[in-house]
């Protein structure tokens, strides 16, 4: 009986906190549509989707890692390195389709190295990927001597192409969203990622090869970073060794707003997508309202604090309620039996 009532309250809070993010999204759309007549239109939505596509692809990678109790600070730098190598490959060979594979491969390799360092030397992901951030940026600058590469020719199709009226990066965004959703919900890897982030010791005691799974998570994230690199260079029509600075933080922001918990074990693909759109809509409406871009950053900062504070308070609130429920009820008569 006791468990039943306790769980009902627990479940109610959980439901409201689980869906609050979508509620916020809907409210934003409604309010924005009222404030600005230009907002609610297919072309504006298409624009927003294209604008957020690259950081959102990164956000899915970060989601996988953060759920697993990891993080990637090197995403921006690896994006530059992978994109640049993809561009250079295309310039050298003129091969269009393999060029994207090169980018993904380079990203995956960097991801693998991140994972290897984290698991082999038991380094915190924060530190290992911080090192990769520096190293990959340096490598990218070395490759071109700090120069930008221009005249990408047909390569721009990856980022600027349109298929059936949909911008190519948005198609990739949808594919990556589906992939992330599938991995998290329908594969063993996904379950293991949740388990490790939820309680690493328990995962190990359940026979999960923790290090192997962590390496896979880094590898997957790396592949997404590589893809994002190709899309980015292609979209700006240039190979920029200085591209992507700070992108990892935009990606993390989307993941966190979307309900991914930094303490691990919690997060969803759909949530991250919603988080990315919230940030995208916010930027869009502030632009439409003509808010100065510096102020926009301040507002975004405030939004992040609000989101995280809400996340934490909804969690601790739930815990308090549980404790209250279990304390309110007297301990069952059975416990009072002296048992030896």
């Amino acid at each position, binding site marked *: 009986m006791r468990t039943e009532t306790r769980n009902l309250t627990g479940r109610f809070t959980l439901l409201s906190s689980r869906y609050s993010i979508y509620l916020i999204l809907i409210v934003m759309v409604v309010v924005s549509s009222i404030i600005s007549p230009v907002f609610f239109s297919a072309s504006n939505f298409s624009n927003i989707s294209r604008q957020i596509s690259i950081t959102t692809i990164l956000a899915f990678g970060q989601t996988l890692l953060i759920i697993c109790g990891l993080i990637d600070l090197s995403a921006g730098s690896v994006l530059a390195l992978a994109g640049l190598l993809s561009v250079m490959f295309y310039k050298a060979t003129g091969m269009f389709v393999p060029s994207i594979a090169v980018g993904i491969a380079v990203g995956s390799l960097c991801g693998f190295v991140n994972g290897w360092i984290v698991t082999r030397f038991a380094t915190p992901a924060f530190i290992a990927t911080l090192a990769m951030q520096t190293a990959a940026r340096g490598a990218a600058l070395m490759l071109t001597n700090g120069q930008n590469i221009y005249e990408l020719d047909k390569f721009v199709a990856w980022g600027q192409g349109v298929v059936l009226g949909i911008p190519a990066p948005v198609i990739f965004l949808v594919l990556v969203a589906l992939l992330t959703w599938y991995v998290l919900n329908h594969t063993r890897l996904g379950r293991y990622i949740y388990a490790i982030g939820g309680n690493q010791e328990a995962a190990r005691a359940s*026979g999960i090869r923790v290090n192997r799974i962590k390496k896979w998570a880094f590898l997957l994230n790396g592949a997404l970073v590589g893809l994002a690199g190709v899309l980015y260079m292609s979209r700006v029509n240039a190979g920029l060794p200085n591209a992507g600075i700070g992108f990892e933080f935009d990606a993390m922001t989307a993941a966190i707003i979307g309900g991914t918990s930094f303490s691990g074990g919690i997060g969803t693909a759909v949530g991250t997508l919603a988080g990315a759109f919230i940030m995208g809509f916010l930027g869009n409406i502030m632009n439409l309202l003509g808010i100065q871009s510096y102020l926009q950053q301040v507002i975004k900062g405030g939004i992040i604090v609000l989101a995280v504070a809400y996340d934490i308070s909804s969690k601790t609130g739930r815990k308090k309620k549980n404790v209250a429920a279990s304390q309110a009820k007297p301990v069952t008569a059975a416990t009072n039996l002296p048992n030896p």
Partner: protein
Amino acid sequence: MGDTPILELRGIEKRFPGVIALREMSFAVRKGSVHVICGENGAGKSTLVKIVNGIYQPDAGEILVSGEKVHIDSPVTARRLKISMVSQELNYIPEITVAQSLFLGEEPRTRFGSIDWKKVYKDTKALLEREGLHYRADTKLKELSVSDLQMLEIMKAVSRESNIIIFDEPTSAITSKEVDILFKKIDELRAKGAGIIYISHRFDELFRIADDVSVIRDGTHVATRPASEIDIEAIIQMMVGRRLDHVYPPKPERAPGSTVIEVRELGDGERFHGINLHARKGEIVGLAGLMGAGRTEVVRAVFGLDPYTTGEIRVHGAPVKIREVQDAIRLKIAMLSEDRKRYGILPMRSILENTGLVTLKKIFGRGYRNVKAEKRLIESISSRMNVKAPDLNTPIGNLSGGNQQKVMLAKWMLCEPEILILDEPTRGIDVGAKYEIYKIIFELAAEGKTVVVISSELPELIAVCDRIYVMANGRISGELREQEFSQERIMRLATIGGDEN
């Protein structure tokens, strides 16, 4: 007698979610006496002293210090009331020095408000010299051995000139020479009129220092007697109490088959040595012992969670190497950990995910998730284990301890183990759920599974097991057949059998 007791507890009660830790706990400590408290693991000794030291607040009852009612809401208050405690668990900050640790939280100040380090080090040096301790004031704590640390803790408590000093198993980590120093100190304190609460499992030392002995059981006070009027047998009798039958399901007749798992001379070079055990098909084997005897360490090694350095493990007569948990699972060994929170549950994940965790290969057999098959599989095992929850998507952290434990059992049952190791399977869960877990254990044995049960509750082991091994100080101190079972025998093997260290 006739004096006001220096410390008196009246009707103290303490509840934790799901358990009553203390009930109507009343006793008094006389001025200038050593009051020893005896009780089984989990009887409430530590909770009791934590209440006196202000770490926990009682839910009911009152505490009197020298006849005056006090409210001890924190260890700081306790210190102000001249109560100090030498705790059983060593909590220390490895990077600070001996002097810093001695004065932690009560550092003397200079005229300018900064810490008077000169005085800290001077006083520490004086204290160390006076007490004949070999380390220096600027030695870092991480450089000290466990026994050094324990002695430091003791000296710290003693040097505060407290009126009430609690020693919670102070001798579990120190050498016999240091025990002598400690007892001399206790004698001095007693002569000065302090009241001393002393908790220990070692009966030999108990009679060296005790003036009074209180026995507690299941959170209640059983009796207080002058040490001169009581003997070990009487204490053990009171500690284990009478037996109540309706807490356990009737033990079915069992006819164990051939040996399934055998452990020979297993050791990890540190916490357990020369362990020989075997368990047969359909048999329930108990592993008894006090906390820290090495029981959990042995089964963790058998399950591949910790390494072992000597000896071998045989399954069905064939020597096997168990290096990691996967090896154990492949050999059809399953283990329920003693620490459910740390090694068991993923609190924020659903019952469904928690249950399926070890057997995902079955659910994801074809590479993708078979949602229906998963639900069917987990529903059937959950109902067999009698898990009570609104639905399978409920996060396991929201369930009661008993239901969490049933989910953990279900998780391991799904991989169809032949050998089940259950480490404290009923810790922290209520009697109703305990009964169900005992019934499940009996069913498993009836199905021909080999069950190893670790428990600190002796009646539980006696009611459940066919055979019991007793451990003390990292070794097997005895093996008892069913007809030899008695709490007194087990207790003796677990305590007296462990004297020689």
